[in-house]
């Protein structure tokens, strides 16, 4: 009975692992194919089933005209994601601290309502915002620029930061702030010298979520940029045209996806240490 249960358990784990790994393995093997390798039907093992080639990878680094330039979109994505994450983290953390520590009243509106307002921004479908954002950025002259995208991403990412950090701050005893103030720190100094150094796990988790959601956004980058500023997902999806080069598509996908996969290790570490549990309520 026990043995049966255990075998079943590992069977399920392995099946799901295979399901999870399938697209990556498929992309990996496809990236070494050429047109011949693709059109001959699904093949998996290089040398045995098809002749491997590095063409799919090489073409990514050849630059304009001769191939597909992947480096510029890569750097664009990196800049936009990191700037937007940093600003969201800064503003969101401050706001979350304000919501956690002070009482707010405006008519019937209380702390919980303001917190909800922040978090509820996630409900806004991108499509609803896209047209006004388009017009707004045009007005500001920020269409097709990295700055414009950063601005938009702040609205997308700040709710996540507030969601994680309000709860994190609520779990830091108020007495710690009070002690700092009694020791002669004003409110800002208290936040900077005492609270911030003690919320590294929360900041890491919030920051990770920001990077994941920022890096992975496609729609706004797609709508709000054209030729000057191309982000990675847009660059890759645009390969998906009439005659799809599966090999370079697969290679570029793997390149785009790998850096964040590494974050899975970081998240798992925080998961084990119990720092994530507080964030979800």
């Amino acid at each position: 009975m026990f043995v049966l249960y255990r075998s079943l358990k590992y069977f399920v784990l392995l099946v799901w692992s295979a399901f999870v790994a399938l697209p990556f393995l498929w992309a990996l093997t496809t990236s070494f194919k050429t047109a011949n390798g693709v059109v001959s039907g699904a093949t998996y093992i290089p040398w045995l089933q098809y002749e491997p080639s590095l063409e799919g990878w090489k073409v990514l680094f050849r630059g304009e005209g001769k191939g597909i330039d992947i480096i510029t979109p890569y750097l664009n994505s990196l800049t936009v994601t990191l700037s937007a994450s940093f600003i969201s983290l800064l503003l969101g953390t401050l706001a979350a601290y304000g919501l956690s520590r002070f009482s707010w009243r405006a008519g019937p509106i209380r702390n919980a309502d303001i917190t909800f307002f922040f978090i509820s921004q996630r409900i806004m479908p991108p499509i609803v915002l896209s047209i006004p954002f388009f017009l707004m950025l045009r007005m500001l002259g920020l269409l097709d620029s990295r700055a414009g995208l950063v601005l938009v991403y702040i609205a997308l990412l700040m709710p996540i930061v507030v969601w994680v950090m309000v709860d994190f701050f609520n779990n830091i005893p108020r007495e710690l702030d009070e002690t700092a103030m009694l020791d002669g720190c004003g409110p800002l100094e208290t936040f900077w010298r005492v609270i911030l150094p003690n919320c590294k796990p929360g900041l890491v988790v919030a920051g990770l979520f920001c990077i994941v959601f920022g890096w992975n956004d496609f729609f706004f980058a797609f709508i709000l940029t054209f030729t000057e500023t191309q982000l990675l997902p847009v660059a890759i999806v645009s390969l998906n045209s009439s005659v799809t080069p599966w090999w370079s598509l697969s290679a570029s996908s793997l390149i785009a996806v790998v850096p964040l996969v590494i974050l899975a290790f970081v998240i798992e570490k925080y998961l084990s240490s119990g720092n994530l549990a507080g964030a979800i309520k």
Partner: protein
Amino acid sequence: MSLILEAVGSMAEDQMHLADINLTFEKGAFYVVLGATLAGKTSLLRLLSGLDQPTSGAITMDGRNIVEVPVWKRRVSMVYQQFINYPHLDVRANIAFPLQRAGLPGDEIDARINEVTALLGIGELLRRRPGELSGGQQQRVALARSLVKNADLLLLDEPLVNLDYKLREQLRPEFRSLFGNNTSAIIVYSTTEPLEALMLGGRIIILDEGRVLQTGDVHEAFHNPACETVARVFNDPPMNMISADVAGERIILGDGLVLPRSGHLAGLPPGPCRIGIRANDLNLEQSAADDMELAAEVQLSEVNGSETYIHIHHNEVSWVVREDGVHSYALGSGIRIRFNPGRLFAFSSADGRLLAAPDNLVSGSAVMEG
């Protein structure tokens, strides 16, 4: 320097925390705030610290209204019942923190840290983080951080309540000697434990349900509780109470125990009153010829330190007897209790005021003051 509270009240979310508080705190004095849980002790300390503002009344320091002065500009220290230290700093940096904020020079900071850590016996721990310390050590660090500032006002909010019994036993005398030589600050210490109040001495403020019931010298208040509530709060176990009726020359206790209306009870007005007796004054053996006697049933015998509290029951009487040493009594067994009528307290049954207290026995306090 004196800190004065006048008609201070504090409300939060429509709940009264403190009402009509009038108190004066003098420099160099030690105050114990005694009260049950939720009596308003923490609220009072937070008002004094400036962390909370009163909803009514005035708080003045040397005649100057200080309600509007922000906390970080006051010279106040507070030790919480939770062990609050800066988790990201080591012990030394924790203690140095308030000094650095005050802009003291480095050698002065070093000197003060050396002094205070030696005083509290935490010199070995300077490089450790608070998270690596035991509860007792953490509280010592918090205390060191509070003492090192030489604040004008030092507040301790039940600092021992979260420590275990042996540590409390160890720290109490240390507190006594730490605070005994104070001349420059106002020290306010809150506790729920009468024993702690008596051990630390000084002046007492007894709180109950957000009101001040009695102030004065600790021992004086212990021997002359202003009212029945004080008698309960200021005794552990709480003073045993029984309804009584004064008629003619007799006082009838509860269900018929009769004693003469004489001695310190001679002046009781006729009619109903409440009689109180300390658990300590109930004995299992006869100690004097005129002892009153009562047969009761044992509800539970509880060990408390080196003493045994015997909960007894007899008709409407549910009393606690304190006995020296550790003993055990079977549940439901019969027991005979004696007490000396000279040790009875009497309170008004209308408003709980003290009507009569026994004469103070010869006590050690005379020696202490001598």
